[in-house]
């Protein structure tokens, strides 16, 4: 059996996620929800056999019980997420939040997914694309020794940044900074996002700078960082360390590149991939747990 789910938001992220869920062994995407009847995402979902509505979350709510929807992904915007989540949770649906609203606890799979499985929260937040790419690395350093400051710079191609991302740019920096501290384990976090319009579009790239409290143990940190690269690659195959870790005094810097799987947008849009792949992985773990409990 598979756990049935709904996708709210038919933009770049929602549509990319749909392709990933169609490959899942434990999740079946049943509904795609948008607000624009002409959106490319809704059209594709319909062609792929999903039920669709352009009536927003309210168009979905009456069908939740009869269609047995147990998980919903919200890829709309930070502004409408709280209301969407309230309506879904009320119907007993587990919500995975891909907006930077962050009303639920942050989830970065290789760092704290296990913890969320045991806690059974109604709503988990997937931070941001930049957070998913970099926070595992901040954690890879902080699990070796204390990090007093963690900073990340996420650069994405202009073509991969939809209107939601552009309207939520402050939410990106604030949410990512918070998660660098809460999940990454840095005493203080800072996040910077840059959009680059170069043609052909550049691959998503991220830089992570950690300032360690004491002199960095180069060997241990390097091992930890390389192990984390493998852990992320398990669900994002195009994730790689380009340079580093580079050590300079108490600064540890890691330069990353994220090549997407080209599901919806082409390979350069690694920012979509890492967000949707992390969300799909999180949902699959929850789904397995649900299946287990129903046996």
């Amino acid at each position, binding site marked *: 059996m598979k756990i049935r789910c709904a996708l709210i938001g038919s933009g770049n992220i929602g549509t990319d996620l749909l392709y990933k869920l169609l490959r899942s062994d434990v999740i079946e995407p049943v509904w795609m929800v948008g607000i624009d009847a002409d959106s490319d995402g809704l059209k594709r979902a319909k062609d792929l056999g999903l039920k669709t509505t352009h009536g927003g979350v309210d168009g979905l709510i009456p069908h939740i019980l009869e269609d047995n929807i147990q998980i919903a992904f919200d890829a709309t915007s930070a502004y409408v997420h709280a209301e969407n989540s309230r309506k879904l949770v009320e119907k007993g649906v587990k919500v995975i939040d891909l907006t930077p609203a962050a009303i639920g606890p942050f989830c970065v799979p290789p760092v704290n997914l296990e913890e969320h499985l045991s806690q059974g929260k109604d709503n988990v937040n997937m931070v941001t694309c930049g957070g998913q790419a970099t926070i595992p690395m901040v954690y890879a350093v902080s699990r070796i020794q204390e990090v007093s400051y963690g900073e990340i710079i996420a650069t994405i191609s202009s073509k991969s940044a939809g209107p939601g991302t552009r309207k939520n740019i402050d939410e990106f920096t604030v949410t990512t900074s918070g998660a660098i501290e809460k999940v990454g384990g840095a005493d203080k976090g800072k996040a910077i996002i840059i959009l*680059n319009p170069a043609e052909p579009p550049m691959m998503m790239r991220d830089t992570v700078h950690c300032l360690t409290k004491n002199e960095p143990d180069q060997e241990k940190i390097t091992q930890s960082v390389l192990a984390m690269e493998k852990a992320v690659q398990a669900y994002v195959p195009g994730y790689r360390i380009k340079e580093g870790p580079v050590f300079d005094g108490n600064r540890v810097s890691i330069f990353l590149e994220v090549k997407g799987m080209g599901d919806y947008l082409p390979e350069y849009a690694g920012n979509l991939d890492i967000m949707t792949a992390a969300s799909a992985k999180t949902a699959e773990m929850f789904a397995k747990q649900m299946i287990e409990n129903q046996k």
Partner: protein
Amino acid sequence: MSKIIKIHDMSLRDGMHSIAHQFSLKNMVDLSQALDKARVPLIEVTHGDGLAGGSVNYGFAKHTNSEYLSAVIPKLKYSKVSVLLIPGIGTINDLKMVEDLGVKSVRVATHCSEADVSEQHISYAANRGFDTVGFLMMSHMLSAKDIVEQARKMAGYGANCLYVTDSSGHMLPEEVTEKVSAMRHAFPDLEIGFHGHHNLGMAVANSIAAVEAGADRIDGSVAGFGAGAGNTPLEVFAAVCDLKGINLDIDLSALMDAAEDVATPIMGDKLPRVSRGALTLGYAGVYSSFLLHAIRAEKKHGVPAREILLELGRRKTVGGQEDMIEDVALELLRAGG
């Protein structure tokens, strides 16, 4: 009397790039007092990368933006202070913090093709009654028509002034004329500004071209402070304006004194010039604040700064991508070794 062209001093913001953001509070106060005396109407004060600019990526300033602003603002009699806000680095919360210190002018800067990331910030500032400027960085990378289209978004969010910003000091006067004229015609009711860098030695000529094309505001710094080879040297620009009958309504002698007696000693041997590196920025169309970072990467990794900057130009990097400098240096090192 001809219209008054408003000059906007960059010495205490863009000038921060020239010394890795290390002005003391006294430096800031002394220079802002000298500019106030010369009746410079607007002075920008922040980290070189604006509100929340302090970072490993761009460098940490000697003091916080709040400390600088609190030291400078209460002592000014004539000049007003503006701040720079680059969405993706600073947020509306950062703007709210300085609003409480008396800042009523903000320049919201985006890469020239990405104006829509400024919606939140421009709308907020305009609604709060700020002098709200839309600042289109790296304007050499877009056609005049596309610049106007991006500026139209900022105007729609509420900006009262729109800038053609030559962040790389790559433009020549005819390009400035074309782009500023296009903006002038598209937005007859808004102010138009020009921000230059002196990397090709063209900043004064470019700024004059901007005024002749209808610009209302011109940015510059005394003694040529500013990233790369510095901004338009204000005292030189002011003298040329005087000869040409362009009215700035400032005290030229006091401005010259500010440059010579106050600004120059602060910078010492770090006074910007058209060095090999700065010239490379202008030539290759690279963001001016990359200069010191590229020189640092040359020292650490032994790859010539010029090679790094040329490669950054080929990759069409934009403002804020300082993190590419070490990355590219390491890549070149590997390719060469």
